[in-house]
């Protein structure tokens, strides 16, 4: 199996890049907000961005090694790179675009035609890129990057501009290609849907640093700190303090059990979060359901908004923390959930996720 190791450092007046990650085969998702340094990282791997220090290596091919003074030019790195807006050559036909990286091989057009067929573009070889739809352009860009048979494929938000149906289809095709050609894929995105559709591993990148990396599900389910949780769009981050084997949270007793593993993560201050859909509203008169009675709060509704999937409420808890609640359209029909109303909410024990203390806290 192939192995890619990336340690890239670059400092300039505006931005510091200092990323560290590695991957053994499969697809690594570089996840982060725009401006986090995702594209810079791809460019560093491709040799399009100069570095101050670090090492980039795939198997025994060294792309860059500051200590040995090695810096392979982009033209000799032999990797595939699909740019954000495809960067297809507008003055060349689709076939010529795909054959572009095949140099002077005699069978270059033949080889490019095979890629046309493989990418279901057989009848489009003589067209120009601007005559194709977005999804077709995307497949041309993929074919062009893969035709020279690279071991490593870099993709920069490749499906961002496409509609959902097309995106899902291309995601599946990409997975297939990754397996068929046993590629290492580094996939940049800021969409979790994209990440889960194509990724095996994930590295979360923020302000030029990798904050966490590992198997995709692991990283997503156990963000190491608040910053990572926020990057994932996790709402309802709460601060708490561990009191013995119980949580004391801003003076309110919480009967949530803390396992030893959780306690080891930090000394006594922790952050925790709960998905907005896991916060339940309690009917005033009805008995509290099993498992919901532990963490009950008085709250006041601040705003209420309608979404496609239901309602979202912002409420202020009695300890002045604001949290968000999502519920289905049909739920809580009998309650008056207008802004200003007082309600009682419950947080299930199992739904509370504990994070390590955030760097940005």
């Amino acid at each position, binding site marked *: 199996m192939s192995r890619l190791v990336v340690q890239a450092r670059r400092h300039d007046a505006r931005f510091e890049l200092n990323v560290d990650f590695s991957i053994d085969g499969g697809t690594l998702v570089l996840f982060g907000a725009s401006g986090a340094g995702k594209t810079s990282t791809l460019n560093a791997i491709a040799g399009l961005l100069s570095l101050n220090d670090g090492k980039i290596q795939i198997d025994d091919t060294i792309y860059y090694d500051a200590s040995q003074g090695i810096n392979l030019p982009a033209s*000799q790195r032999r990797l595939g790179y699909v740019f954000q807006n495809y960067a297809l050559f507008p*003055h060349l036909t689709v076939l010529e675009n795909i054959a572009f990286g095949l140099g002077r091989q005699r069978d270059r057009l033949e080889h490019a035609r095979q890629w046309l067929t493989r990418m279901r573009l057989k009848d489009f070889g003589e067209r120009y890129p601007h005559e194709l739809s977005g999804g077709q352009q995307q497949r041309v860009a993929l074919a062009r990057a893969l035709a020279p048979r690279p071991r490593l494929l870099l993709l920069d938000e490749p499906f961002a501009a496409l509609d959902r149906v097309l995106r899902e289809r291309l995601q599946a095709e990409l997975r297939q290609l990754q397996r068929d050609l046993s590629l290492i894929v580094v996939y940049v995105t800021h969409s979790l849907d994209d990440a889960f559709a194509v990724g095996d591993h994930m590295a979360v990148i923020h302000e030029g640093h990798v904050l966490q990396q590992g198997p995709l599900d692991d990283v997503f389910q156990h963000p190491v700190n608040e910053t990572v949780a926020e990057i994932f769009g996790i709402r309802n981050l709460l601060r708490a303090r561990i009191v013995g084997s119980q949580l004391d949270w801003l003076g309110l007793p919480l009967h949530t059990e803390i396992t030893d593993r959780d306690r080891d993560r930090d000394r006594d201050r922790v952050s925790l979060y709960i998905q907005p859909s896991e916060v339940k509203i309690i009917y005033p008169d009805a008995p509290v359901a099993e498992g919901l009675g532990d963490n009950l709060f008085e709250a006041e509704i601040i705003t209420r908004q309608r979404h496609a999937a239901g309602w979202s409420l912002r409420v202020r808890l009695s300890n002045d923390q604001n949290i968000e609640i999502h519920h289905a359209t049909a739920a809580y029909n009998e309650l008056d959930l207008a802004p200003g109303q007082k309600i009682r909410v419950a947080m299930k024990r199992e739904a509370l996720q504990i994070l390590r203390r955030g760097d940005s806290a």
Partner: protein
Amino acid sequence: MIGPPFWLSVKVTAIAAILIFTIGTALALWLVRRRPRGRMVIETLIMLPLVLPPSVVGYYLLIVLGQQGPIVGWFGIRTLFSPTAAVIAATVVGLPLMVQAARAAIAAVDPALEQAARTLGCKETMVLWRVTLPLAKRGLLAGIVLGATRALGEFGATLMVAGNIPGRTQTLPLAIYDAVQTNQHDLTTQMVLLMTGLGFFSLWAVRRWEPASKGRDRP
């Protein structure tokens, strides 16, 4: 006689056009891609012949090409009052138009396309030949047509450094001046119409090649 000055003009313009194209494209590439220090000053200097009186350009050329000048001093090449001087004068006045057009055309090439070519194995010269120049083609064509037409019409500086020697350095614009002085109305009319036609044609061609809208930039 319209023949000798016409053919001399064609020759002078053709050689000047080749020089304008290569020097102008190289200068534009250097200015856009390397972004040298003092870029504004260099660009302004290149543009100067557009606004200076032809006599001023001619005077500078006299100094450079003359007996005391570096060309004679360093290389021993005497060019004054030869067709070569006419070529040099034509090149100097045509160059600004080429540089201006080429600079805009090269700057308009999406750097991502050049990056893509690099990742596909192209070295820098190949990037230039396969991506940058083909994509800047329309702008380069417009520049060379404008520059060559300006070179064809060059009068003042040519008169000062190449003279007005019939059959040797007398180009069409100079021949027109002579013909007017000697009251050869028919000859004047022919040559004036010829020059006007060429000028019209070149401007019309440039308008056609101008990238009308971005994006549809294919040949």
